[in-house]
């Protein structure tokens, strides 16, 4: 069995994000594997543990994105491929799906493709569904648990109203949510293996496609307006007095 996980590299969630000359800055914070994608790697490794599988992590990004792939390798992925091309700089979700679908076809024989639910940078959450549609494979999204049996995959989808249990024949595309289980820490051996691994780079020419035309165009970025008022601390002699004052303040804001 072969499982492909699609990952992205993003600034750490703790990073202070700002804009400088129209460019996004994240200070000294490291670039990391997108936190949701760690769950995707974890989900793939869980199936590997149960059924045996080759887990291939793929990532679109600049050369620095190798570090995210190394993290996946250190967790236990077997292979990693970086998709890097100067023509991929302004990739939108749909473009990413097109590139990933081409890479998954080139890898060949994938039984499962697993995504995290969304990236924390652009955060569109569109790519898993769009990749599935491009491949023509069923999409089982927001999986909280996964079972493989006789060439079929069965998942519990975590939706607003509870859980929907669905199944489909392989190959299939999944996105996973946190209920899948906390991502394992890279082992010492894993880290050593990852540091020695060779990660091939595929260009658009290797994939046999031209650069996707962006369908969504960014016009501007801006920081959210900073809060005008600092926190007003409510004080009083007794808790009751504090509570009553606070209630009046809240009611005066007319939000209720």
């Amino acid at each position, binding site marked *: 069995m072969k499982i492909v996980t699609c990952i992205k590299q993003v*600034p750490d*969630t703790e990073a202070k994000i700002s804009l400088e000359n129209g460019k996004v800055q994240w200070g000294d914070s490291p670039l990391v594997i997108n936190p949701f994608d760690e769950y995707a790697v974890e989900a793939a490794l869980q199936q590997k543990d149960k059924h045996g599988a080759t887990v291939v992590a793929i990532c679109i990004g600049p050369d620095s994105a190798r570090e995210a792939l190394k993290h996946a390798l250190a967790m236990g992925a077997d292979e990693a491929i970086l998709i890097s091309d100067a023509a991929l700089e302004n990739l939108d979700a749909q473009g990413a799906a097109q590139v990933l679908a081409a890479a998954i076809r080139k890898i060949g024989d994938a039984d499962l493709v697993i995504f995290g639910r969304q990236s924390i940078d652009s955060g569109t959450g569109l790519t898993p*569904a769009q990749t599935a549609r491009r491949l023509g494979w069923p999409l089982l999204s927001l999986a909280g648990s996964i079972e493989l049996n006789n060439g079929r995959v069965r998942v519990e989808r975590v939706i607003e109203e*509870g*859980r929907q249990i669905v199944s489909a024949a392989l190959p299939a595309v999944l996105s996973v949510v946190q209920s899948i289980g906390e991502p394992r820490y890279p082992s010492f051996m894993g880290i050593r293996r990852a540091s020695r691994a060779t990660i091939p780079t595929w260009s658009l020419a290797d994939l046999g496609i031209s650069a996707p035309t962006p369908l969504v165009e960014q016009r501007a*970025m801006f920081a959210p307006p900073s809060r005008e008022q600092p926190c007003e601390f409510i004080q009083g002699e007794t808790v*009751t007095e504090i*509570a009553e004052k606070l209630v009046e303040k809240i*009611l005066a804001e007319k*939000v209720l």
Partner: protein
Amino acid sequence: MKTLVYIDHFKGEVQPASWEAIGVARNWGTVQAVILGASGEKLVKQAYEYGADEVFFCDDSSLDDYRADLFASTLGALATAQSPDVILFPTTTRGRELAAILAVDLNSGVLADVTALELEGTLLVATRPIYEGKLFEKVVCRGRPQIATLRPRAFPRPPRDESRNGSAIRIEKQGESAIQVEGYAVSESRVSLTDAGVIVAGGRGVTNNPAMAGADEATIARKGFELIGELASVLGGAVGASRAVVDAGYIPYSHQVGQTGKTVAPDLYIACGISGAIQHISGIRGAKLVVAINKDPEAPIFKVARYGVVGDLFQVVPALTEAFRKRLGK
């Protein structure tokens, strides 16, 4: 301008952001609404009441259960037949992926999880959060029709006019599904944080009550959430939680607020015993008014709160419940 709005529902229960989308589209011109699946026909009148000019539905039994591929193909055929300028979805689990798939089929782009919209002629200029709401971007769609998903509660819900009505236009389902629906499991507790007007949330502070010294953490946390639940109930709100207490197993995951959980946009957010990890703060950026109760005056949550109380939630929360009860006459 003509807009097609997808009405997202589960077994006849509509995600209210669908009506918000109708409200947005009404400002631009003609509104077509589409409702797929069982109970769809019952919702047609409601769609007219919220402002649709034409309502399509398909109650083919193969659509009784949501399946992304089949729903998207059926929507795609309708979009091709009607050629709207814009297709709007609520940003729900279903809306997001249907928009994604439809965009592939129609070779257009998706403006995802939009929080504000302007119109330049017939071009949508959408504002949407990026980097977990630490920044925003303005984006436009280069394909046609333009497809957007609207974040719940980012746009006002239109008034409902019960005198409005129209015909239910039946459409055919298209395509087949490779997905088999085997059943449903109800989540431990049904909370809809994304649609809540008021959220009262608890964090690690719920495990810290000196008056209950000796009791185990789980017992203290249960009591803490009981108090939080009472305040939420007086305010007609929902109970939220920080990641720490969800991870500790004191409250189900469905209550989690924050980056790895849910982004919320209530009118009032009361954070009780939540220190304010950066992910949590990102998750509540959409809240109109944030009130924080915490023992530690240095807690980062106070940096985003409008009003704060430095104190023990086990004392402040019940006092607040009582004060609201009196003041609101409940």
